[in-house]
Structures are given as structure tokens and as C-alpha cells.
């Protein structure tokens, strides 16, 4: 066979979403790749310009559909900075609760998709099954399983219901046992190691140069985690370790994500204990009119603009399950954000695709891209 381009996507089992990986191959070898994005572009940044600060939250859940909480948290942090508000402490812990459970759910989703990519059939369903328990928890206090709309500028919508913490502990116990099974199914299998060792290697300096963050960067041995480096919410009051591996390949990414789930369980146990001991308000006491319960935006625009909140900008970053997400919110004093800009970690991770795909086989594309953990919703936004 001579060289040819093949389109992996936009409808392809490897893509896990809508995108197109154009691959130039010679036989089974990859010579060049060119990711094409934009099939899921919904213009969230543009729509946000026409929405109230709280109404953007509904878009954030849809930004990344497997890590909605992380994006809500990200946006809320920036918006609070831009508007000069602080949430109560209990809300911060609740946000950590959401974030870490979301990290587990997202990593379980990644696990399911990743093992499916290398042909492991049953762990796919094990991952989905256990993720469902976390979604049950989400549903019990937010009322939805994927699109939570739970965090508010200035806090969170409501407190967790009574009995939640006990249930959360049970789920955490169950999940800790399952992680052992996952390792047996993957690491214990020589075929898995044959498939994944020394595959898709991206060394630390390449990661930094190409903006790669998250588990991919930590798998290259760089100990960088915003939760430790620039603690936000309640992370500075919680004990955990940063998962790092050193071989920078697909196996290393697997190990890092597995360890992150274990660390999340560790964090969550502390958070749940804290929540039991410290009742309190979950929403800031005094909020601007358009930030509390949503009030009518109608009325006299002229008067409205006369007494706006001080102009401000908000910039914040959170450690999303996929990596480092940033949001930049510009408040020009009106009731809508003037400009919202998001930095999606997967966006940067995919943009480096040429660095970690070229030179491997066609059959290696699914495991490598699986180990990147692509979520197209947040790439295209």
C-alpha cells in the first residue's frame, strides 16, 4: 500500500465524540496526523455574552458532559472574582465534594471508554456501572444526573439532604474495592501491558512546550496539580497526594488516573466528615439582584446601568479531570459578562496529537487517544 490519508471520524468508534482525526498512513504506520475539530461547536462563549451570570451555569454543564461540575466550579470561581464575592465555607467544601466525585465519575467514564478501545469488553460495563453509583449521589442532592446546575455565584444551590454522607461513604467503600478489580483486569493482563507499554510517549518537556496538562503531564513525571500548586476552594485544608508516574506512556496515564481516583476517595472521606461536623449556610448572604434567585431582567435599562457593580475581571483555573481548565470572565458592569473565555485542557492535549501519534501503528491510535481522554464538548465549546 502506498501512503494515503484516512479520516477517522467524525463518525468513528475511536473518536468518543464528534471530531475527525485525519491520519496519513503507510501500511499500518502513521506518518502524519491532523485533528479537525469543530463538529460540536456550539458557541458557548458567544451565547454567554447574552446571558446573566447565573444562566451561564446551564451552559457550563454542557461544556464537558462528563465533568460538568468541574466546569461549573471553574466558571463560578471566575465570575465570583469578577463580581467580588466570596462563598461561605460550607459551599467551598460542597464544591470540593462535587469536584472530586466528578473526577471519579469522569475517570470511570474514561476507564470504560479506554478499555473498550483496546478491545476489553466487560470492564467497559464495570466502569459504567460504578459510575452510575456516583451519578445516583449527584442526583440525590442536585436533582440531575449529568447537567447539575447546582453551583451558584456566591455559593451552591442547596445543601446535601440528610443521610447523604452515609450513602456517600458506602459508595466510596464500594469504589475502593472496585479499583482493585480494575487493576487486575488491566495491569494483570500481559496483553494489556504489551499493548500499552512504551506507547504514545510524550516526555515532560514536550508536554510543557505543547501545553499538555493533567494526567498526561503527570504521567510524564511532572508533579503539577493546581489543587496543590494553587489551592482553590477548600483544597488547602485537605490532605492528598499528587499521582505521578514516570514513563510517560499509555500505561503511565492509566496508573496516574487510577491513583487519582484513589486520592479522590481519600479527599472525599475527609470532606464528608467535615460536612457532618460543620453545618452552615451554603449561599452568600447578600447578593446582587440578578444573582440570587433570578429576578426579572426587565425594567428600565437606563436606570439599571446607572447602578452596576464595579467593573472587574475574573481569572481562575481548576484542575479538571482532564487537566487544567481556565476561565477568564470580563465584567464590564452590565448584567451579562462582557466576554467569557475558557481554556479547555483537552483542546491543548489534542493539539499535540502529532507529537504522540506519529511513528506508531494504526492499531495504536485508539489506545493512545483513549489515554488522552478526549471530551469534545469542552474542546469545541
Amino acid at each position: 500500500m502506498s501512503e494515503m490519508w484516512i479520516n477517522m471520524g467524525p463518525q468513528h468508534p475511536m473518536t468518543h465524540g464528534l471530531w475527525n482525526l485525519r491520519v496519513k498512513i503507510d501500511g499500518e504506520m502513521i506518518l502524519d496526523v491532523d485533528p479537525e475539530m469543530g463538529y460540536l461547536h456550539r458557541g458557548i462563549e458567544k451565547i454567554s455574552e447574552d446571558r446573566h451570570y447565573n444562566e451561564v451555569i446551564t451552559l457550563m454543564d454542557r461544556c464537558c458532559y462528563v465533568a460538568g461540575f468541574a466546569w461549573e466550579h471553574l466558571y463560578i470561581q471566575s465570575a465570583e472574582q469578577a463580581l467580588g464575592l466570596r462563598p461561605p465555607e460550607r459551599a467551598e467544601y460542597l464544591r470540593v465534594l462535587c469536584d472530586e466525585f466528578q473526577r471519579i465519575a469522569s475517570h470511570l467514564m474514561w476507564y470504560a471508554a479506554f478499555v473498550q478501545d483496546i478491545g476489553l469488553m466487560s470492564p467497559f460495563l464495570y466502569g459504567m456501572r460504578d459510575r452510575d453509583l456516583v451519578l445516583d449521589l449527584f442526583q440525590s442532592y442536585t436533582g440531575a444526573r449529568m447537567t447539575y446546575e447546582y453551583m451558584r455565584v456566591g455559593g451552591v444551590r442547596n445543601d446535601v439532604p440528610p443521610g447523604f454522607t452515609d450513602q456517600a461513604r458506602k459508595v466510596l467503600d464500594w469504589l475502593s474495592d472496585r479499583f482493585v478489580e480494575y487493576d487486575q483486569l488491566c495491569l494483570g493482563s500481559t496483553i494489556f501491558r504489551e499493548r500499552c507499554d512504551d506507547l504514545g510517549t510524550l516526555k515532560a518537556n514536550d508536554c510543557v512546550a505543547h501545553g499538555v496538562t493533567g494526567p498526561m503531564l503527570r504521567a510524564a513525571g511532572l508533579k503539577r496539580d493546581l489543587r496543590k500548586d494553587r489551592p482553590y476552594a477548600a483544597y488547602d485544608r485537605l490532605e492528598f497526594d499528587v499521582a505521578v508516574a514516570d514513563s510517560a506512556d499509555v500505561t503511565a496515564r492509566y496508573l496516574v488516573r487510577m491513583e487519582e481516583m484513589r486520592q479522590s476517595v481519600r479527599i472525599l472521606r475527609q470532606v464528608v466528615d467535615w460536612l457532618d461536623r460543620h453545618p452552615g449556610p451554603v449561599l452568600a448572604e447578600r447578593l446582587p439582584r440578578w444573582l440570587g434567585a433570578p429576578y426579572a431582567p426587565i425594567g428600565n435599562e437606563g436606570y439599571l446601568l446607572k447602578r452596576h457593580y464595579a467593573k472587574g475581571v475574573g481569572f481562575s483555573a481548576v484542575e479538571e479531570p482532564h487537566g487544567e481548565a481556565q476561565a477568564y470572565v470580563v465584567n464590564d458592569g452590565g448584567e451579562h459578562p462582557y466576554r467569557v473565555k475558557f481554556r479547555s485542557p483537552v483542546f491543548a492535549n489534542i493539539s499535540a496529537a502529532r507529537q504522540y501519534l506519529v511513528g506508531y501503528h494504526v492499531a495504536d491510535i485508539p489506545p493512545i487517544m483513549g489515554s488522552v481522554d478526549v471530551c469534545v464538548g469542552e474542546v469545541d465549546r
Partner: protein
Amino acid sequence: MASPITAKEKPSENPILFVARPMATAARQFAKSLIRPATIVYPYERLEDPTFRDRVAVASGRPIGVGHVWDNYRGVHALNIATCISCNLCAFSCPDLCIEMVTVPGGDPKHPKKCPEIDYGKCSYCGFCSDACPEGCLTMTTRYELSVARRAEMVYSPEKLYDVFRTKLPMNPIRVERPANEDAILLDPPLCIGCNACSRDCPTQCITMLDIPKPAAKPGEKQTKRIWKEPVINDSDCVRCGTCISVCPKECLFWGTRK
């Protein structure tokens, strides 16, 4: 600080063991699921059924739904037409513009009563409307089965939402605390003509028109038709819906902070 996890832990080259570990795990799972697979056979078994949840939890050992709060689920809305005050807040707060206020029978002919009509083709179930509802008459229920044969059926009229209310489904018990609000509706007195529009349309009847002294007419000034009354707003009853601002013909009401 934990030491870095090292990835290299080469599996043994023994070809027998190499299949043994994952296959043993799969077989263990097989044996477990012979007793009770994780599947919920949906139309026959429902997650919202507490007896079912407990049964499954016992049979499979999974912490499924033990203490699971199903009532918080954000499903189809229920509307209590009787207590609705037509304040429009649900429609204003909807980020997807799926709520339209439509006239329902029961109001007086001059000022018809308007209640929300929800288009579930657009609704994103964010719950902002029920959070905004000052009277608690628009809530979300646990109903989640919504498939219809025609798109027009996705639009739930107030009567249909009232039917949902009457089925006595578990209502979403979460009430968002209204934060103390520093905003109030203020009056710009020189502009007011005392037309009574705000007081007439106020959904909570919290605006009363009080007489104000009529200033002495200056010589040569043309007599205006000004009614010498002025609205006084009772802040504790006001739900801050802004209806008065929108109906004010002279734009003399505005948002502000009460001193």
C-alpha cells in the same frame, strides 16, 4: 508527599499466568452476576421504587439507592394554578426561553390571569424557574417519561401542568433560600403621574397609592391632569418581579437600594 508511582512493573512472561488474572476476575464477576446482574430492567423495575432499590442493594451488594433521595429529581414541572400570582418570574428566569405566560380562565376580564406554559422541547430542566417562584406554586416533580408522538404535545399548557400537580407526585422538596436582597424598587417622584398602573398590576398587591399634598399652583401655570397620588411599596411583601417597572408609563420606577 507520596513518592512517585513508577509505571514499570513488568508482568511475568509466564504465558499461563498472563491470562489467569484477568480471566479469574471476569469469572468472579460472572459468578456474582449469576445471582443478580447490575441491570435494572427498566420498564418493569424502577429506580424510584424504594422497595426495589432495597431488594437490589441486598441482592447485589451494591450500594444502589440505599438512602437514595429520589424526590429531589428535577423532572416535569407541576403548577398549582390556584396559588399562581402571575408574577412572570419563572418566564424571566428561564435561560432557554421555553416558558411563555398564557391566559388562563379565572382572572378578571380587565387583567387576565397568566400562568406559565412550558415547551419541553426546549426546557433544560435547570430548575431556575421553580427556584424563582416566590409562591412555591411551580415545582419540579419526579416525572421523567416524556416521549410524545408529536412535537406539539411537548408544549405543556398550564392546565396540563396542573394535572401533573394533581397526580400528587413527590415534589422537589428543595427550596432555595432567598438571600436577603439589597435591591428594592424605588420611585422617582417628580416623574410620577399617579396613574395607578403599578398598583393595579402588582401580583402581590403590595403597592398602595397614597395621597400626596397637592402643591400650590403657581400663577400662570397650566393645570395638569396629575392625580395627586404616589405608590408606596411594601418591601417585605414585594417579590421583586419588576412588573410595576414594566407597566409604568413614565418610567419613574427603578431598581435601587432603599436607604
